[in-house]
């Protein structure tokens, strides 16, 4: 059904929103409020309460357990305009007036008073959202590539499968008390998606006209990271659920429940050896298939169409619609709109439609921005929904070519018209010391500083840098996904004499996708020198590159010891960067002993992490 509404003087169609999927349950909000009161009255122990709280998506805030980070699950990253508006008003009422897009397609509200968490949950339920099992030892938000359904290279749209898996496992008794958290990621194609860094990763494929997936097990980022192993060449769609159930059951039975630091499934796989684990999964899957009741299996309900009728796909990867104003060379001095189109818009497989990326800074967006964005989606996207991305931006799909400028102008009116969403400038940063107990450094602010500086320098318009990424975590635990970045950083501290300075360990050569690699640690860099260090790397690359080599390719060559200029290998690179990365004494450079956002001397304060509670 289409309605019309006025915008300015012209009439516009309003696309119906994607239907509300009702992930939330009202009774859970009341139970949460009751348990907060029982905890405050000391009728519920701290440990029991913590477990309960995390199961319901409320994470303790940095050194202040009276406040929570409320993690809103957004299954497959798909979120409709009413949900965005509700998050806007909840963030104003109970949080800090901004919401935060995470690297796993969650949306987080920070610094919510513990006593108000149930109120946030109440509001979320009204629009079908939930925080259930967003933290704790459960199946976390099930991710799906934000290109799924519009990607020219995908075999089919994985989104219905991703949602069905999420639906099957949420509140499922089999995953209420796992040894540790469990992550499932769906891709659309070989290139897009994080299938190798999840407990279970799935890429859709078609074989002999049958739908199925390539499934990877035992990957994941953290203090010790692993790339997932390929289970088999092809898993037909009817075996997707039994395969996932088998992996979770094995993890539940054999996972390490003693050592919290080493109890993700990837450690189990590593310790047991892949071949053995693989055999066990295949065997367990047969048992699951033989013993699962039909009524249970039916709960895995893949609905192929749960939204408005969308235009059919008409394009193959060879005949994509050209971007409307696509010049080969965009210059930072040229039209702002063209620069934005070039760095934030991609054609879809549906002829005439585009996916637009909204550039956020480290995933932060204000309540007002959310509201205007919701309105723009309603009026300009045929899909009636947004997807959030692991790059901490929003992807708005099904925008017609003739509406791109209007969409851009609406973004500009609320300060969201920055270019670079699909380029090196869109740096990822976890929440760091802005709210996390484990963080050592202010990675969040650093990501924002990197983005601002690099847009100012016009790096987004530079084709050579486009396929490179920068990702920053505030500690080794990888929420900022630093190990899959071209240039990644994780926070730490370095001591010289009695003085402590915030520093980052820099990694090179990580990548996502099915051929994904983990980056390798190169050297430490003072926090305040990270930007200069990246600039120095880019300057050297510009001098040395040849044959249209991109920065990403150049770095990978050096990682393999195959550089052809003055910088041949990692050792050469370290020597080159020593000047800029050296940490002088506090007397010589006192500024290097302060982190971003702090006027006072740096101290490395952390508290107990709650990931493992």
């Amino acid at each position, binding site marked *: 059904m289409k309605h019309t509404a006025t915008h300015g003087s012209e009439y516009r169609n309003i696309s119906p929103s994607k239907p509300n999927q009702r992930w939330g349950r009202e009774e859970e909000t009341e139970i949460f409020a009751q348990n*907060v009161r029982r905890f405050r009255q000391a009728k519920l122990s701290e440990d029991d309460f913590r477990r309960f709280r995390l199961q319901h998506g409320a994470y303790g805030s940095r050194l202040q357990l009276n406040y929570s980070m409320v993690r809103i699950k957004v299954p497959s990253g798909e979120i409709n305009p009413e949900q965005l508006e509700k998050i806007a008003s909840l963030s*104003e009422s109970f949080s800090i*007036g901004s919401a935060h897009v995470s690297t796993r397609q969650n949306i987080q509200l920070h*610094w919510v008073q513990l006593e*108000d968490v149930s*109120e946030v949950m109440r509001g979320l339920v009204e629009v079908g959202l939930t925080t259930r099992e967003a933290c704790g030892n459960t199946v976390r938000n099930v991710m799906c590539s934000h290109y799924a359904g519009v990607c020219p290279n995908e075999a089919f749209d994985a989104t219905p499968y991703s949602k069905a898996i999420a639906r099957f496992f949420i509140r499922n008794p089999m995953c209420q008390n796992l040894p540790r958290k469990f992550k499932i990621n769906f891709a659309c194609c070989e290139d897009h998606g994080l299938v190798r860094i999840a407990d279970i990763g799935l890429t859709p494929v078609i074989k002999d006209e049958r739908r199925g997936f390539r499934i990877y097990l035992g990957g994941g980022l953290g203090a010790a990271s692993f790339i997932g192993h390929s289970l088999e060449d092809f898993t037909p769609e009817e075996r997707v659920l039994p395969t996932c159930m088998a992996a979770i059951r094995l993890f539940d039975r054999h996972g390490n429940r003693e050592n919290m630091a080493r109890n993700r499934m990837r450690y189990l796989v590593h310790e047991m050896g892949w071949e053995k684990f693989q055999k066990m999964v295949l065997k367990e899957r047969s048992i699951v298939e033989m013993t699962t009741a039909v009524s249970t299996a039916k709960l895995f309900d893949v609905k192929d169409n749960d939204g408005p009728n969308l235009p059919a796909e008409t394009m193959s990867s060879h005949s994509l619609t050209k971007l409307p104003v696509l010049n080969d060379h965009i210059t930072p001095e040229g039209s702002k709109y063209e620069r934005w189109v070039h760095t934030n818009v991609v054609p879809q497989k549906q002829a005439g439609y585009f996916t637009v990326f909204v550039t*956020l800074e480290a995933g932060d967006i204000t309540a007002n921005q959310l509201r205007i964005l919701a309105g723009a989606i309603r009026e300009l996207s045929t899909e009636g929904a947004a997807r959030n991305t692991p790059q901490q931006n929003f992807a708005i799909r099904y925008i017609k070519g003739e509406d791109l400028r209007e969409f851009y102008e609406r973004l500009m009116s609320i300060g969201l018209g920055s270019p670079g969403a699909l380029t090196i400038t869109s740096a990822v940063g976890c929440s760091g010391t*802005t709210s996390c107990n484990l963080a050592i450094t202010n990675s*969040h*602010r650093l990501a924002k500083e990197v983005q601002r500086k690099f847009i100012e320098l016009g790096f987004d318009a530079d084709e050579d840098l486009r396929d490179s990424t920068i990702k920053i975590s505030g500690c080794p635990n990888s929420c900022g996904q630093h190990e899959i970045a071209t240039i990644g950083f994780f926070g730490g501290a370095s001591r010289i004499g009695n003085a402590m300075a915030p520093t980052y360990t820099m990694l090179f050569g990580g990548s996502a996708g099915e051929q994904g690699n983990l980056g390798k640690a190169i050297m430490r860099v003072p926090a305040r020198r990270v930007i200069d260090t990246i600039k120095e790397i880019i300057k050297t690359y510009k001098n040395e590159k040849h044959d249209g080599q991109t920065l990403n390719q150049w770095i990978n060559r050096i990682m393999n010891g195959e550089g052809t200029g003055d910088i041949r290998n990692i050792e050469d690179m370290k020597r080159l960067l020593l000047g800029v990365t050296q940490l002088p004494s506090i007397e010589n450079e006192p500024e290097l002993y302060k982190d971003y956002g702090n006027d006072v001397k740096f101290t490395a304060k952390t508290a107990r992490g709650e990931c493992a509670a």
Partner: protein
Amino acid sequence: MNNIHTSNAATEKKAADSTIVGAENYELPIVCDIDILRTLIRKKAARVVDVRKEEEYKQGHIPTAVSMPLAQVLSKDSEGIVDILESIGVSDKLPVIVYDDTFGALAARVAWTFQYVGHTNTSLLEVTFSRWKDSGLEIENQINTYPKTTHYLNINQEIHADVSYVENTRGNTNMILVDSRERLNFLTEHIPGAKNIPYTMLGSNGNILRKPDEIKRFIENRGLSSESEFITYCGSVGTLSGLAYYALKLVGIKNVKLYAKSFREWKSLGKPKEEFTDANYWDLSAE
């Protein structure tokens, strides 16, 4: 989005009409709904006070309203406030309804001031001027004046707290200090022992205050007893905390006071503060 509190406007209207009939000085509720106000305006039985800037008033205001900008009220002492009431033709018992266009915070501060000098029959309009206008309700442009009246001065210390009173709340579990500022300001620094109920929690959907049962739930969730004494404060002159004052009154809390000089005075006097410096929470804001 919901419209203006539609809860049971019809019944309330009936009630309002029947109470007003023949009664010159209708006793106002804490928050005055649109229907009551329109009835009172029709019967010329109330004074409507617009506390926005004078230029805004001149461009259109609620019928019969007089202009009395917040700044003018803040510049006066108690006698001066009584002079104001007299100058806008308010007699001792006349219903006074105050509105603004700043989510009720400026109106709350002025209403509280009128009540402080003794004009108890004062109420806040349930919506802002923008909301009134957007709902298609009557607007007029003329500048209204009324014959001067006389009004008594009867200071109500029960609703006022000064700095030494606030200092005495320390350690007294029956006295609850409420900080109405936004979360990040509160985290940065606040009066020791204060509880944070940001003003942003209090209104919704164009209503300056939520429904009482919601506000009541917020208080109960915090484990606070409505039998306690509450003292509200905010950052500078008691506007945000003025709104909090009325929110607490609305849910039936008997003993509420406003620390009108608020945190600005507290800081300038060098009183102790609680600060939280272990996190860079300001960097999370996308503002």
